[in-house]
């Protein structure tokens, strides 16, 4: 039974009608006639939302002839840029909307999490909301009663469980909501980027919980932009582009395909490549982050070095050029800043002649605390406005799964750096 197909999608398409631009009226008479006619026009427009007589220019295909299969126990990631049709696909799979053509057959109980905390009512207490949210997601009251203690425990909001949810912080709400979802126990779990919420520690807890689900022989369908989460969780992936499936394969193949498909937007990959701009005298061409094995990544182990490589171009020289790279944590605090002038002699950007160059440097291992960071990059011209500036050019994540520290509950987890500090012991008063 292990290789049984549980989801089969065949020739799936979905058509939407998008609103066209409003007309403008340039005379009072035209405005008045338009005002009188507007109820009829609005009626036609509202009616057209659900009917498709003729293919106007406002008809939009969110999905075009998508087919794939998922075997039991698979964890499949759906990857694609914004507007590629990922959410539409999940909505059809979770039966929220009907496909225009095509068919899906599903074997087993499905639970879909397209949003955390659907149906939460702020006037009800945490406990009441667990019932509300749980039944909305398809659990019975009996099941919820059985799992109530576990759900409350996992959420970590025991103290406030009988307080109305409107008194909760947004973080607490999310914890409670995810906790309900995590205890759904379906055979097939459909998840849409719900992990983009909560603090870092809780996100890890969620991924951990989902990994448990995946290991338990459950089938998972996961949409996310978080490549680190995808590679931790999924084995297979499909890539969508403008409603069409353009690739299907292992996660690393698909992530590579995604990188190549989107030259403009790869802050999720630890890799950025920009087309040269003729107007700039001094500019970035490429920035990439690699680990020791030379893999381009955006997530690194705490014990790994990060090799940064920065390709740039000078078309007009100036002694005032320099490059600044700043790493910020999620609270916008600068963790460190480094420039090409700090320890370089003779080859800082200000000394170079026209041409293309690459700087390489290493961010030491065991420095950054496990968390998420953003890289800002500035191409500067001293005494003049900045030539090029990139805020949050790349997002990186430091994971700590290889040290003893990472396996323990820490007393504090909001520290910015985590250098290797080794305590030694000397017995001063032997008995």
């Amino acid at each position, binding site marked *: 039974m292990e290789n049984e197909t549980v989801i089969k999608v065949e020739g799936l398409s979905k058509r939407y009608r998008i609103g066209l631009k409003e007309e403008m009226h340039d005379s009072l008479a035209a405005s008045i006639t338009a005002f009188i006619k507007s109820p009829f026009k609005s009626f036609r427009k509202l009616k057209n939302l659900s009917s498709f007589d003729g293919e106007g220019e406002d008809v939009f295909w969110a999905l075009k002839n998508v087919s794939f299969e998922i075997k039991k126990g698979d964890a499949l990631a759906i990857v694609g840029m914004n507007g590629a049709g990922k959410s539409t696909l999940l909505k059809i799979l979770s039966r929220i*909307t*009907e496909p225009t053509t095509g068919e899906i*057959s599903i074997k087993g109980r499905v639970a879909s999490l397209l949003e955390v905390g659907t149906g939460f009512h702020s006037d009800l207490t945490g406990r009441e909301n667990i019932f509300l949210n749980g039944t*909305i997601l398809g659990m019975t009251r009996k099941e919820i009663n059985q799992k109530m203690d576990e759900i409350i425990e996992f959420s970590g909001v025991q103290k406030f469980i009988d307080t109305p949810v409107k008194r909760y912080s947004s973080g607490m709400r999310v914890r409670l909501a995810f906790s309900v979802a995590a205890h759904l126990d379906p055979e097939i779990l459909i998840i849409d980027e719900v992990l983009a919420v909560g603090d870092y520690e809780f996100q890890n807890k969620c991924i951990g919980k989902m990994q448990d689900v995946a290991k338990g022989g459950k089938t998972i369908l996961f949409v996310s932009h978080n490549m680190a989460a995808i590679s931790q969780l999924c084995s297979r992936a499909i890539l969508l582009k403008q409603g069409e499936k353009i690739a299907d394969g292992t996660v690393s193949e698909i992530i590579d395909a995604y990188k190549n498909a989107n030259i403009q937007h790869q802050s999720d990959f630890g890799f950025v490549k920009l087309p040269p701009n003729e107007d700039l005298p001094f500019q970035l061409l490429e920035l990439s982050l690699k680990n020791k094995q030379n893999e381009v990544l955006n997530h690194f182990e705490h014990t790994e070095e990060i090799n940064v490589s920065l390709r740039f171009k000078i078309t007009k020289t100036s002694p005032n050029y320099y490059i600044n790279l700043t790493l910020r944590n999620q609270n916008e605090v600068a963790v460190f800043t480094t420039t090409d002038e700090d320890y370089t002699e003779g080859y800082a950007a200000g000394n170079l002649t026209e041409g293309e160059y690459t700087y390489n440097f290493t961010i030491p291992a065991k420095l950054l605390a496990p968390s998420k960071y953003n890289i800002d990059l500035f191409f500067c011209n001293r005494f003049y406005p900045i030539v090029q500036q990139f805020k949050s050019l790349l997002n990186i994540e430091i994971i700590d799964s290889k040290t003893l520290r990472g396996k323990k509950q820490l007393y504090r987890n909001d520290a910015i750096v985590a250098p290797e500090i080794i305590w030694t012991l000397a017995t001063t008063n032997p008995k």
Partner: protein
Amino acid sequence: MNDLKIKKRHSWQLFSKQDFIELIKFRDLLYTLIKRDVYVVYKQSVVGFGWAVIKPLVQMVIFTFLFTYIAKVQMDDDSVPYMIFNFVALVPFTYFSSALTASTSSLISNESFITKVYFPRLIIPLVPIIAKLVDFGIAMIVLGFMIFYYYQTQPGSININENILFLPLLILILIVFSFGISLWFSALAIQYRDLNQIVTFLAQFMMYAAPIVWPFSRLKEISQNIELWIGIEGTAKAFEKIYSFFPLAGVIEGFRVCLIGGAAYSSMPWDLIINGSIMSLFLLISGVYFFRSKESIFADVA
């Protein structure tokens, strides 16, 4: 394990046995949503459930003042106090209008569910229909006290009789009618938000169209006036026939027979009740089909 097929539904597949089984499966959701609706309405309110009583009571006081002192309404039986005559009708009508208003906007106010989770959508308009029964029950208790008071202090005004056994049937017709019309309205309202405005007018119109402030016996007079005004013979009869299909008429007159009795309300108005039931059932069945045919686009137009 049976396969679930997802594809575009055809119109003849609107309501199958499968759908019914699914509806049963989600009964716990229905229960929690009803509980939520009942709780939430009066949360953080000083009077709380008292509002369920105050609303129809205040209306009754206003109507009694208006129609006994300012514009005197000719009653069939002067021994029946206007207050009781009016309140007996206002209790079921208040249920109808509050259930209809809440149910019409239910899909819109629960939009977040519709676009994020799957469950049988029929549950959503059904929730206010059931939840408002709590208010109805409270108002019925107050009505009971009022009847008891008049029974004690004004002998002869109230004649409770065996027809009271038909009360549950009348309440059922009331519920079916409210749900039937709400199915139509809620499914339309999610695409055409105008329905939210229309429903307020409609409830007000029905308040005067139903025999709430005026006794049903006046209908003959009204229909004859209409015939005179139009000038075509038979209009009065046709109007009365059409009117008999208005379910609130049968329910309200039935309530009066059950709870007031006496000379003016001695026998159940069966023709009104039967025609009203036919209309209610028709609205319910057509409503379910209309709702189901629109269901697939809710998430797209919401």
